[in-house]
């Protein structure tokens, strides 16, 4: 069953402590979260004009959250909580944090 973007956004805000980054386009929202022990802030974009997220879009959000697909579904289905998410990304971010050579 595909998730609705508004449900994903609501869960990320209320259950996982994500906050919106203001000043962006009306058809989407950027949510940000800095977990304890993480080197960087996680940023994810939620589209508003999509009725239900297909596997492609779900995969992009999953990546932005630095978790694998099964973990993301557990987050959305309420079998993983904020502490488990924070611990998961601290221990095994997927994909790993990018190293930017300048």
């Amino acid at each position, binding site marked *: 069953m595909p998730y609705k973007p508004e449900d994903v956004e609501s869960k990320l805000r209320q259950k996982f402590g994500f906050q919106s980054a203001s000043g*962006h386009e009306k058809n989407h929202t950027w949510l940000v979260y800095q977990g304890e022990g993480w080197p960087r802030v996680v940023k994810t*974009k939620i589209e508003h004009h999509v009725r239900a997220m297909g596997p*492609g*879009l779900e995969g992009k959000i999953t990546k932005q959250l630095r978790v694998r697909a099964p973990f993301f579904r557990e987050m959305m289905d309420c079998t993983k909580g904020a502490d488990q998410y924070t611990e998961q990304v601290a221990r095994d971010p997927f994909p790993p944090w*990018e190293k930017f050579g*300048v």
Partner: protein
Amino acid sequence: MVGYVIADRATARSGALAVHVAQTVPSAGGFSWSPDKQRAIGYSRSDAARPSHVGGAATSVVGSPFHMAIYGVQKCGWSVEHPIAVTVERDEDGSYIVSDDRFLVYGVGDTQSEAIDDYLVSLVEYFDLIRGEVATNPAAETEYQYLRKVLVRLTDSPLSHAL
């Protein structure tokens, strides 16, 4: 779209590039060879009269996810000064998704062109988020400096004459 696509010679063989460019960038006006004849440079209709000096690498499998690069002056008011490799794919509902594996930014749209435009808007917003993150997190500095080289606001860009 004012943007560019380059394909390597293998991809561009037998005129396939013209088809690819037309499918990748609906407003594409044509292509020419780079001076070393190893790359084909596509350019948009709005820019068709001017020889292109910027572009992006592209390979394509029609009907499957394919990779291309976004490079050059963009209508969102920014110039992509170093090619950004992106993947173009279709979701189950038929919408297009353009995404990269470096910044993890994506754009969606009913057409490839819309998805590319949405990607670019999102990338600029992402750049803005990184700029804000740098103030409190030094670990974001290298990404910020990298993005500063990649994304240039057109008024600051040496390519701004191309508008």
